[in-house]
């Protein structure tokens, strides 16, 4: 199993933080990296979308949305009955695991590109679609009491779901790419050629942030670690099954498995802060960022690729 070069930057960031180095990406640069990655992924997907048949995309998209709604239902009972978490905390964290991490997706794309593995280029559409259903299911799982308390916030919740930076830039990139088609070639030297370099910078900071959050898991470390590595595998197994049913290419199976495996730490926390303010946000962000993200980047993604390549 050979890790992609960008993963080395993640490890460097984590090691620097563990050694208490003062390494830190400037806030503005980090935010610029996020904007760049979202737009680059969206543009690439949009261009592919412009030449993809709608008849194939619609059923696939519907299946992916249904899958996104199912994932929190797998996570919720484990957190509620084994973790003994409160209903609201379990629901909020389940929503994180039903949604996706664009950074994890970017790492998987970088790995597939570097190995020359083909995949359905319209996948960014699925990334955008998978952001939404888990948030709604998470709010419903939190129960009537929590929902009643936030009844007046539904407008704000919907605004947060569809207008948060992640979804807006991703959908905006897809729309521009689909509209412009081959004309995107003029911006591709920036959004295409620099993708791996910017991703490396972004992962350097992510490694630092993930390591910074490690002390926060001390109290429930055993359960958090167990859940944080089991849930990605359950999501990936379900996603791989769905991808096979949808007839996706081997690269597509890997990418859908990665989406099922990843947990959100940008879009969902923002939506949950509005929808379920009583939930312990630190717990779910730490779990997805300090355990699941490193596990996916270092162990799971290369394993999914090796497995798919072995069986295809």
């Amino acid at each position: 199993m050979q890790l992609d070069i960008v993963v080395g930057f993640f490890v460097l960031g984590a090691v620097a933080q563990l050694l208490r180095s003062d390494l830190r990406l400037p806030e503005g640069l980090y935010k610029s990296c996020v904007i760049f990655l979202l737009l680059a992924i969206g543009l690439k997907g949009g261009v592919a979308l412009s030449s993809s048949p709608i008849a194939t995309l619609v059923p696939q998209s519907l299946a992916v949305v249904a899958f996104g709604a199912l994932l929190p239902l797998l996570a919720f009972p484990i957190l509620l009955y084994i973790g003994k978490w409160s209903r609201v905390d379990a629901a909020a964290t389940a929503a994180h695991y039903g949604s996706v991490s664009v950074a994890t997706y970017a790492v998987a794309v970088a790995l597939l590109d570097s190995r020359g593995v083909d995949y359905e280029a319209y996948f960014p559409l699925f990334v955008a679609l998978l952001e939404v259903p888990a948030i709604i299911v998470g709010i419903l799982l939190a129960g009537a009491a929590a929902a009643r308390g936030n009844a007046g916030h539904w407008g704000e919740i919907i605004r947060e779901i569809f207008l948060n930076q992640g979804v807006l830039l991703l959908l905006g990139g897809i729309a521009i790419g689909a509209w412009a088609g081959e004309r995107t070639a003029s911006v591709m030297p920036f959004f295409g050629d620099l993708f791996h370099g910017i991703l490396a910078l972004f992962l350097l900071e992510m490694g630092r942030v993930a390591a910074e959050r490690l002390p926060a898991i001390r109290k429930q470390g055993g359960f958090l670690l167990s859940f944080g590595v089991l849930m990605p595998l359950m999501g990936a197994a379900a996603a791989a099954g769905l991808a096979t049913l949808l007839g996706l290419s081997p690269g597509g199976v890997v990418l859908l498995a990665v989406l099922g495996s990843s947990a959100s730490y940008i879009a969902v926390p923002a939506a949950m802060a509005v929808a379920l303010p009583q939930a312990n946000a630190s717990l779910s962000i730490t779990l997805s960022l300090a355990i699941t993200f490193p596990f996916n980047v270092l162990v799971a993604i290369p394993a999914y690729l090796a497995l798919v390549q072995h069986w295809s």
Partner: protein
Amino acid sequence: MTKPQLFFGLAVGTLLAALGGTLSAAGITGSGLAATGVLVLLVNAAYWTLGQRRRPIPVESPPDRRLAQGAG
């Protein structure tokens, strides 16, 4: 840490270690999964052991107290 959490952690660790070991032995993928499984097992065992040690031990058990009162 509760007993169900310990059993859950041990089950997850064993599953990962077995899965990783099998895939590694078959030459499909590296030992990352197996190593994660072992880590999960060790961390859960450590949390359980530390939790047991930290549990407060009563200074006097009820029979001891009765004995003490009898002696007074």
